[in-house]
């Protein structure tokens, strides 16, 4: 009897423990987000100067380390290791190359290459397997040098891919349009005062096409204020041209939607 109780209680305890450990999200409360406070930034540079987030920093450091490792390892592989291997047995390898290349369909080229190989035998190393490796490495290297030069923008691109525009890019655009938009003051307070405008942009930020999304509302009776609001928004876009868009990633923002909302300003 006692044994049964003991078994039962241990199993129960076990289940409770599993539940507590494997379902932690059940105990978590929903996150209370504080209200969003909008801040107008006055001077904004084109590029983000915000220091990288700790996570991103770690990743960047890792990449840097990797780069260093590769660049240190690569030269010895080519120069030191392979030379001694290649030099003592040139004939064998040439034969191998010949054999390999005879199997291929273009014998002419092979002949040339073989000749060259024999001429510069001592200086260069021609392990057929390592050729492929060399080619691959050179690719890697160029890619890594590219990474080095474009490091910041590429990192930005990554974050942008996730969120659209970066905060400072969005703020720059907002601040610009805030300055251009004269809100018509006679609008009714209690109406829906949202105008959505879809833009097609050129790389320099000038507008190719602008389209009001709720166009049907423009000419509805009793919605005269909407036309006025939409026109004021279009004027703001025209006045602000060219828009202050990021210098990179045109593909991302060539189609842009601006939501003009006057409710906040008119205290609705």
């Amino acid at each position, binding site marked *: 009897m006692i044994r049964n109780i003991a078994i039962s209680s241990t199993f129960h305890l076990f289940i409770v423990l599993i539940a507590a450990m494997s379902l932690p999200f059940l105990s978590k409360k929903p996150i209370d987000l504080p209200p969003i406070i909008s801040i107008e930034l006055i001077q904004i540079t084109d590029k983000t100067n915000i220091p990288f987030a700790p996570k991103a920093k770690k990743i960047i450091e890792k990449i840097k380390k990797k780069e260093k490792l590769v660049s240190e390892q690569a030269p010895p592989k080519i120069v030191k290791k392979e030379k001694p291997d290649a030099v003592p047995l040139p004939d064998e390898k040439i034969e191998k190359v010949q054999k390999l290349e005879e199997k291929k369909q273009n014998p002419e080229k092979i002949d040339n290459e073989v000749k060259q190989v024999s001429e510069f035998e001592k200086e260069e190393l021609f392990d057929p397997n390592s050729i492929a490796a060399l080619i691959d490495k050179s690719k890697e290297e160029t890619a890594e040098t590219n990474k080095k030069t474009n490091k910041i923008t590429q990192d930005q691109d990554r974050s942008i891919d996730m969120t659209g*525009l970066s905060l400072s890019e969005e703020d720059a655009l907002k601040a610009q349009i805030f300055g251009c938009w004269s809100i018509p003051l*006679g609008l009714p307070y209690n109406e829906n005062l949202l105008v959505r405008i879809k833009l097609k942009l050129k790389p320099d930020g000038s507008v190719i096409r602008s389209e009001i999304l709720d166009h049907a509302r423009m000419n509805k009776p009793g919605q005269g204020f909407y036309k006025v609001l939409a026109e004021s928004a279009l004027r703001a876009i025209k006045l602000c041209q060219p828009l202050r868009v990021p210098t990179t990633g045109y593909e991302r923002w060539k189609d*842009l939607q601006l939501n003009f*909302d006057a409710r906040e300003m008119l205290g609705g």
Partner: protein
Amino acid sequence: MLFRYLFILIILLPIKAFALIEVDITRGNLSPLPIAVSPLSIDEKSKESFNKILKNKDMGLEISIVVENNLKQTGLFNPLNKNAFLQKPDIAHLKPRFEDWALIKAQALITGKVTFIDEKLRVEFRLWDVLAAKEMMALAFTTVPSNWRRVGHIITDKVYERLTGEKGYFDTRIIYVSEKGKKVSRIKKLAIMDQDGFNTKYLTLGNELVLTPRFNPTNQMVTYLSYFRNLPRVYLLDIETGIQEVVGDFPGMTFAPRFSPDGKKIIMSFAMGGNSDIYTMDLENRIVERITNHPSIDTSPSYSPNSKYICFNSDRSGYQQIYVMKSDGSNVKRISFGKGIYGTPVWSPRGDLIAFTKMHKGKFYIGVMRTDGSGERLLTENFYQEAPSWSPNGRVLIFYRETKTDEKGEGFSAKLWSIDLTGYNERLVETETDASDPSWSSLLSN
């Protein structure tokens, strides 16, 4: 585990690829819209004809100045200096060079043409969107030459409506009590003028005291308070014909009259035996109806624009406060609860607000509140001011303010002032004499 991540990635990838970047623009500037009012073009022959009749040199320029002043008064527009204009009026009216107008930062442009045809004044005008480079509106009017100021007001109304989305209030008149003389022996006359202070006419001679004139919202009738055999009575006056009559035959004093929104009834206070209550009288069949029945003083009634409710002033709680009831007198509810005394409630023509005068600690305020009493906002504060009256579009209030003229407090002057709902655009309305108790008419043309 790996598959799960892959699955999530597969779900997320397409979203990433097609997401359209959206930017929310929640703020803009509230600075006035820069607008260029080009002088209306006029040919030499018409110019001479107008000069003969009206003694003004350039009718085109004069009308554009009327429009410009009206727009400036609103506080919503910033008319640009005419000296900066690069294009001549006649060419601008045909096809403006938008680059030139954009150069002086104009966002809208008004052009026009004035001609003298068959002893009549013909005015056409166009409103242009400078930035979009297109015409927004084009209209033409014909009228007698002496009406030229009204043409300016009508143009302003149309432009205002097109650019702000609400009706204008420029082709309107204001009736007020003109005051002259010392405080003890002041002569008060009824006077009427255009909303910009021009074309003043006096409607009474000044023999009797007149008070609280109010416009009929549908036509050019006026109701006001005057003394008849030393008894204050509500009168009715037709401005067009000059015919005056007493409203109803009440056995006591009647005061604080106002029209119903359809203009068919007059609502007023009737006092007898130290108690005053609110009554209405139908102007067609002269039937009198009692609305309130309370031992307190009920006065200053004002209808809501849909005629369903009445706001009024009562001291039934001990102090003067604002109340709202249904138009049959039922369901009385107090709506003012702030500190101080509230008076002269007026329901906005738009229906959303009630304007009032408030007295607190020796100061007078003009303010507005929502019709349930919430959202009280005091627009202006002064030593003595009262009697707000709404512009027909419910955006501007006109009231009068008394100020001391010397330091001893002897002698005072009363002037009309206007303030808009933002509370920032306060302006003196010029009148020939001292003025009080203004009332704004509805639009003369629709």
